[in-house]
């Protein structure tokens, strides 16, 4: 295999392939583009995280704590918009997907390398517009930009700038999606049949379908919003016969699938982590693969469940509620199959797997509380309250972000060739996990008891729970600062990771770490699935890497 050919060190890896800033800015190498995305989205995560901490600090006490209502409203909008558009949507697909998808397929690059670089620059342009909107006074509409408030003259014109930023970012996402779909269809190495693709690839593929078919609707919706605001064409304006609720339909037609753009790749990561660290094939591989596609398709059918009390017709609400429940099935299938994978495995407690287990814990809560919101009568009480806030943070943060950080830790040696301080990593996972639960579990209680969302000010009887939540958020923040510290520190070390520190049979670990420019010295020929630890061809790989490597963790 190619491992032997590269171990001699004759082939330079992609980080050495060119020196200087210019070699990065004009690179067409998917791994370098992925690394640039990685730093960019982590920057956005820091921005959104700081906003979150300020929001939580303001909520320490009723009334004004550190900022006034105006600043608070801008702050939670900044938090939402930065986290959704700048961080979570591009996080796993654009950063980890770019680094790994071609390697996992045994391809030399994505199908359209130039388009890939263009996507990154489009992302940067969008991010600049978003930052400009913040710099010129910020936006206080919430990340959903609901009309008619957002089109009213009470909202500054920075709203147009912010929506334009989201519009531009959308095209970055669309082009990434096109690139990945074509790569999966046309660039798989010999032997990689559809059902020998890693589940991460299945997840990214399903995500890409959503990116290509749902994101344009966001683009046209935001375009209509801008036209409406500028020229008053009236589509969303009730006073001249339009319909404000129509904006919500258009918005959620994208933004519900967008929830799956955010969570599906995370689920893909968990499949990889669970298999590697249980050293077992994914239990019911086919079911898990199809569940990704099923989630992608179902996600187009259920957007109206964000609108049960919005003035949408009762018939539509009933229909959307009915369809919504079908989403529970593929989500459940994934969860049960991961458990099946762990059963009789050889389970390692390395930090990426701790993230994976934290994901299963948190995503279970996120998923189960989704049932409360899908059922019509309980949703009427719970929607637009802190219950919803807690629910989607359990899914988005407890789900996607924990999976993303699990993936970063897992593929850190692959990407940069270095290992991080495993002891600190374990402490960081613990801080993030405990802090997260303190922050958001208290919000379930708040919401059920009657605390509405997006409130600067609140009645005093909610103060105690808000304080608990705020303390939790500081713990989470400390956890992420610790992670940032040891990851950055690791980059200064010499390349010490070895090619396959986790003893995985997955294809991306069968080339050197970091990989060479075209990923493999020779096009790999695949004879077994990505997780076949007990396959006669694969088992020796594990044993060989286990004996040749230094300590794994």
């Amino acid at each position: 295999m190619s491992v032997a050919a590269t171990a001699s060190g004759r082939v330079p890896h992609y980080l050495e392939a060119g020196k200087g800033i210019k070699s990065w800015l004009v690179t067409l190498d998917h791994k370098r583009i992925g690394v640039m995305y990685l730093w960019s989205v982590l920057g956005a995560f820091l921005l959104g995280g700081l906003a979150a901490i300020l929001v939580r600090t303001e909520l320490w006490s009723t009334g004004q704590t550190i900022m006034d209502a105006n600043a608070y409203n801008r702050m939670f909008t900044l938090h939402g918009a930065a986290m959704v558009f700048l961080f979570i949507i591009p996080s796993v697909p654009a950063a980890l997907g770019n680094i790994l998808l071609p390697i996992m397929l045994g391809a030399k690059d994505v199908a359209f390398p130039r388009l890939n670089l263009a996507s990154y620059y489009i992302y940067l342009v969008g991010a600049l517009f978003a930052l400009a909107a913040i710099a010129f006074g910020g936006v206080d509409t919430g990340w959903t930009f609901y009309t008619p408030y957002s089109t009213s003259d009470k909202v500054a014109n920075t709203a147009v700038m912010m929506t334009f930023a989201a519009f531009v970012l959308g095209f970055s996402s669309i082009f990434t999606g096109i690139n990945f779909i074509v790569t999966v269809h046309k660039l798989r190495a010999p032997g990689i049949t559809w059902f020998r693709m890693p589940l991460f690839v299945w997840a990214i593929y399903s995500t890409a379908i959503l990116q290509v078919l749902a994101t344009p609707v966001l683009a046209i919706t935001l375009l209509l919003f801008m036209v409406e605001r500028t020229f008053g064409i009236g589509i969303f304006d009730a006073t001249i016969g339009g319909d404000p609720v129509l904006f919500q339909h258009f918005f959620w037609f994208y933004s519900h699938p967008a929830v799956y753009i955010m969570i599906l790749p995370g689920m893909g990561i968990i499949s990889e982590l669970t298999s590697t660290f249980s050293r077992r094939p994914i239990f019911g591989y086919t079911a898990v693969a199809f569940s990704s596609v099923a989630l992608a398709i179902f996600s187009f059918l259920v957007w109206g469940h964000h609108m049960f009390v919005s003035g949408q017709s009762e018939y539509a609400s009933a229909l959307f509620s009915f369809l919504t429940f079908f989403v529970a099935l593929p989500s459940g299938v994934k969860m049960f199959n991961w458990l099946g994978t762990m059963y009789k495995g050889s389970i390692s407690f390395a930090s990426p797997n701790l993230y994976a287990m934290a994901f299963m814990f948190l995503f279970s809560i996120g998923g189960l509380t989704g049932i409360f919101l899908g059922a019509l009568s309980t949703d009427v009480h719970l929607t637009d309250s802190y219950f919803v806030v807690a629910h989607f943070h359990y899914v988005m943060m407890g789900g996607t972000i924990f999976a993303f950080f699990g993936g970063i830790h897992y593929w850190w040696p692959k990407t940069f060739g270095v290992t991080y301080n495993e002891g600190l990593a374990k402490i960081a996972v613990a801080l993030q996990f405990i802090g997260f639960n303190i922050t958001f579990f208290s919000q379930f209680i708040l919401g059920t008891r009657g605390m509405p969302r997006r409130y600067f000010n609140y009645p005093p009887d909610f103060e105690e729970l808000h304080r608990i939540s705020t303390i939790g958020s500081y713990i989470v923040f400390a956890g992420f600062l610790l992670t940032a510290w040891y990851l950055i520190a690791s980059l200064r070390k010499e390349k010490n990771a070895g090619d396959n520190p986790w003893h995985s049979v997955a294809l991306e670990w069968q080339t050197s770490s970091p990989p060479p420019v075209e990923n493999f010295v020779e096009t790999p020929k695949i004879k077994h699935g990505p997780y076949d630890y007990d396959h006669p061809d694969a088992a020796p790989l594990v044993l060989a890497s286990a004996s040749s490597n230094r300590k794994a963790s």
Partner: protein
Amino acid sequence: MSGSHHDNPYLAHHFDTPRQQLEANKLGIWLFLGQEIMFFSALFVGLMIFRSWYPQMYHTAAHELSVPQGAFNTIVLICSSLTMALAVRWAQMDVPNNNRTVFWLCLATFALAGVFLVVKYFEYSHKIHVGTLPGKFFDPSNPEFPAALKQFDNAKLFFGFYFCLTGLHGIHVLAGMGVIGWIMVRARRNEFNSKNFAAVECVGLYWHLVDLVWIFLFPLLYLVG
């Protein structure tokens, strides 16, 4: 580029065969066309909703559009689709002067697109003249404002959709003219042959989509009011 190990100069380094590359390019452009459909979707959905909410307004407003001009433009676009399809056909063939033929067919397509935009210009300027414009430019006090529309304040909705849809479509026509021009330049350089025609085919596919959108736009805006 490390494509030196290929003997085909048109093959990019990360592809193994010309067919793989062609199909990848075409799948890419088809996905792009899929996203274009969804890009136009919300406008069509909104248009149809307001049509069923305000049938009389829609009926009256649609009758202010010029069917002869719309129909003429439909014919123009259909013809341009034909010339574009023929251009792709010639690009695919290794016959003498095929690049010349591609050039002239593309020029014809380009010219027909220009005709389309000129007709569009006359339609727009008429509307600007009589004040049937979207949103805040809607002006019933204009002396030449159509009398039948005066009773419909919300007719500005119809013209909002009219201008958004045709405007967005017009931008696509302009973009199409741009990429067709690029093909013409490359045809002048004799770049196309049976091994290298993906660019022409992809531009062709895009141009047919512009036609497809108009095939639906024309009856929905002009005819079914």
